């Protein structure tokens, strides 16, 4: 069974439990669910289109070529930038990172790519800004970029 199904079963289980204990509260909860869906789904729609646009114009081979060469500390930054831009599903991050490693990228670059691919996405920025505001978004994304750089240096130095 996939992770999504497990989540769904847990959520419906909790919903049932909630309905047994207090049907009025559960109705209220479902109203909240509807409002959240109406707020978030349209943004997701736009984001998914953006993801498609990026994939349509940048091929994976080009990215690998970019990251395979270069062994300076700067290459970690490039790995991070690619991670920010190439928004791929978290589950696809590791297979692609393995592909990068085979193409010659060092572990500093790879961890930079993996972490920013999971934590920063130019396509998730609109959602983050909408939910948490501009200042929160700016601070979190910049700090994440810096911290991931430090992690990248650690991975470059530690023999793996």
């Amino acid at each position, binding site marked *: 069974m996939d*992770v*999504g*199904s497990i*989540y*769904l079963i847990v*959520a*419906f289980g*909790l*919903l049932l439990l*909630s309905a047994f204990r207090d049907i009025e*509260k559960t109705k*209220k*909860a*479902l109203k*909240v*669910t509807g409002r*959240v*869906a*109406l*707020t*978030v*789904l*349209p943004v*997701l*729609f*736009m*984001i*998914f*289109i*953006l*993801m*498609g*646009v990026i*994939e*349509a114009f940048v091929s994976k081979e080009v990215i690998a070529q970019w990251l395979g060469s270069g062994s300076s500390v700067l290459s970690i930054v490039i790995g991070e930038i690619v991670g920010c831009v190439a928004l791929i*599903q*978290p589950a696809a991050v*590791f*297979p692609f*990172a*393995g592909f990068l490693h085979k193409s010659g990228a060092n*572990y500093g670059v*790879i*961890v930079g790519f993996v*972490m920013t691919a*999971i*934590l920063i996405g130019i396509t*998730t920025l609109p*959602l983050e800004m909408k*939910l948490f505001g501009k*200042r*929160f978004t700016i*601070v*979190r994304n910049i*700090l*994440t970029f810096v*911290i991931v750089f430090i992690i990248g240096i650690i*991975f470059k130095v*530690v023999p*793996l």
Partner: protein
Amino acid sequence: MSILKEAVTYILIGLLLWGIISIFSPAKGLIVGRVAYDAFAKALKIIIAVFIIIGLIQVWVSPQTLSRILGKEAGWKGLLLASTIPVFIGGSLFTIFPLLKTLREKGASIAATIAFITAWSGKAPLLPLEIAFLGWKFAILRISIIIPFAIVMGLLSEFILERWKPRKEVTE
């Protein structure tokens, strides 16, 4: 009413972008559609689950309870919790953000919120994949390093955000 207006705006922007690309290159337009559909199909179950859980949290968890667990008064324990538990949660930023928005509204501190997001990148559910493609040394080092860094991220962000306030005292 304004929720609806915003919803329509986002959908229109997406459709417009897709439409323009499809007019200039139908092949690329097809790729865009396929990627968008795949992403949506993959995330759909988790998205529905998270929306339901958000609703339940909203009615069942009182702000007092939550801020005792993840608020400022929770102190180190709250921060430690926010830096470890999320390592084991799946999903993507799309599903994590709405969930954290709810926790934040209920009284979770900025430090706990940002530590949560950072720690979530540990992605323990994907550990088998990570080991398969990058080796167990890489995977173990990455996941164990994330916890202290999540704490640092949380504290540092809170420190900055508490001092960087907009001129007109509105805190959204």
